[in-house]
């Protein structure tokens, strides 16, 4: 694998664009400071293309320039999909084969987060990105608890519904609340279930780092842009392996 540099309009030109605000009034010094920042970020030469005062105390900049960094894709670590992507029909068949009953999924937004857009995109029949949500899958029973569900409520419902998988979404978060909430949630499930009976724990949301599943005590973390099909395939894959 070869190393790469960004592409502007010519191979190897290394061109990037950057915008930011400095807390200073607009002046020649401010423009020079913006170039200095770009230089320090590895942009050289840095071309200041736009500087705009925003009130008396701030200036907004757009800078184009060549970066002197290279990237090496062979050194990048990501969570690749390590399960086959199935159609809804295949998921239904897999569930039938491995469980011989419907599979129950309980979903919720926990903590104070009131934004159900993520959980709804995955669960509601309406779906997301052209894919139908999990409610559409015949062999999946979906219980969507909605927003602002407390961890004890979630555990209780998961037990009552005999959930096979628990989906938690965290969209709007401040001060790492999504990480704290997720850890609290996984700890609560570990406490109230024997290890081999615990439902699959899956969290998702735009602020999560997909590599953090282990650290958060969950089975999978899904980031921005995840589709219902990916989640359904993952659940089917995991539970089929568990049943086998």
């Amino acid at each position: 694998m070869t190393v790469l540099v960004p592409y502007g309009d010519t191979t190897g030109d290394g061109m990037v664009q950057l915008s930011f605000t400095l807390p200073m009034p607009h002046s020649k010094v401010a423009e020079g400071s913006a170039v200095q920042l770009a230089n320090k970020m590895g942009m050289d030469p840095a071309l200041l293309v736009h500087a705009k005062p925003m009130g008396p105390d701030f200036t907004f900049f757009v800078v184009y320039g060549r970066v002197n960094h290279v990237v090496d894709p062979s050194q990048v670590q990501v969570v690749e999909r390590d399960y086959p992507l199935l159609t809804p029909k295949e998921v239904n068949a897999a569930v039938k084969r491995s469980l011989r009953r419907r599979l129950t999924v309980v979903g919720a937004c926990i903590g104070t987060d009131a934004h159900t857009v993520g959980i709804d995109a995955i669960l509601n029949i309406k779906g997301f990105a052209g894919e139908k949500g999990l409610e559409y899958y015949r062999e999946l029973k979906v219980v969507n608890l909605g927003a602002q569900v407390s961890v004890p409520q979630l555990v209780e419902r998961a037990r009552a519904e005999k959930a096979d998988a628990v989906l938690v979404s965290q969209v709007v978060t401040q001060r790492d609340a999504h990480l704290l909430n997720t850890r609290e949630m996984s700890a609560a499930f570990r406490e109230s279930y024997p290890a081999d009976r615990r439902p699959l724990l899956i969290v998702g949301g735009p602020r999560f780092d997909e590599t953090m599943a282990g650290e958060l005590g969950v089975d999978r973390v899904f980031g921005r842009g995840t589709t219902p099909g990916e989640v359904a395939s993952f659940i089917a894959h995991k539970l089929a392996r568990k049943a086998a």
Partner: protein
Amino acid sequence: MSRPPRGKLDLDPATVRHARSLARKAGRPIVRMAQEHTTVAVERATLRLAGLGGADEEGTPWVNRLADTVRADLHDDGGLAHGVALPVWDALLRGEAEDLSVLAQKAAAGSVRFRLPEGRDAQRARTASRKAVAAGLRTVDRRRAERDRMVKRHGDAPRQPWIYLIVATGDIYEDIPQAQQAAREGADVIAVIRSTGQSLLDFVPEGATREGYAGTYATQENFRLMRAALDESSKELGRYVRLTNYASGLCMPEIAALAGLERLDMMLNDSMYGILFRDINPVRTFVDQRFSRQVHARAGIIINTGEDNYLTTADAVEAAHTVTTSQLLNEYFAKEAGLEDWQLGLGHAFEIDPAVPDSFRLELAHALLAREVFPKAPLKWMPPTRHMTGDVFKGNLLDGFFNLAGALTGQGILLVGMMTEAVVTPWLSDRDIALQNVRYVMDAAGRLHEDFHPTPGGFIQQRAHQVLAESIELLDQIVDEGLLQAIADGTFGLMKRPADAGRGLDGVARKSEAFYNPATDLLEEGATR
């Protein structure tokens, strides 16, 4: 043969009248239900209007302490069903305490017993409580007159739509400079987003607050601080800058009262939002709604309804008629509660998937429909959120089209869209870019509505007629099965909410024969004494 065109959409006035009469039919049983019940929040709002504020050292407001004790003392005798005014002012008249605040402290300490007074005692309690609450409502009246004076002195927003910007830091002392800066940059209306957890709190936090999640708590002190700061800005800028907050959730009547007392100018206040999106009990919501709207009517506050939210969960094309239906219901409930046309910021949003062919034409049809059905209401036009992605460049373009649709269809209140929606809480530069977007569109095309006349019988007119027809069909259905049942069935925003479930149900009581609430009477009568 030919008749003059009727407005831009050629809507048949008889059809629109029919839609309104259906909304009235659907809403009337709900109003009756609201009149037959009270809630803990309505009773606490009454105590707040009578001047009881503050909280104990644990942060529990004195209105909660007092109302809870009264309810517990009268538990075997109807509890909340008589309202709190009679037992509370009876206790004051019996000399249990010199004022409400001492009475609340004694109640919390368990050193006073409440009873339901009868006969002359009841009459005296009624008179005394009415006097106390009337004083609070006169403060609300004074605040309203003060607003009128300030608008006259400083001038009003220079044009329509009013530019509406949000601040949401969680810390009122960070919010203030941000709000003042936003006003300097051109905002006519500042909204302080609430902390996400607040709608489910069954009490209003107290004092100036510096900790909130994705927003700042609505408290009386925060209201006062922000209003004072924006009064400074109004003076500096030579135009009255309006302040918005949220009268929603479990405490909406109390927050409405606080808004009236502190001269807030607009409140988000939807008749069904709490039911659908916060799973608050429908009866609780409708009772609290009616009271809070009566307060808003009295305070000269413009309400913003929440139809935009339906489109964040349901499809904006398929569900377009649920927006119109809800607007008609919101209008009925608002007018019944005494609000006037100029106070109805009926909501709708630019949420059609940009990948749908003719999406902009559809948006224009929907926005124009709202404009023509509610010609005198300052409609609240909400920016795209659902189809905003991390692609900020595309987002900025989409916001430009949103602004253009607003200009073309004469929207009254334009919530400024941020290209970083769904990415980060808006940065200073995001707000600047967003306002630049609005300014460009308004300067370039702000009066384009004068030239914009959709082709008779063309795509836009047809679509608008179709949506109106679908909303009439839905209203018919709601009248048949009843609004509560329709809500239970998931008619709005795809959310199913039965009337006997949801949060806050235990705070609802059916009024007894002896029930008395001076605030409700004074608001119904429009009286000052």
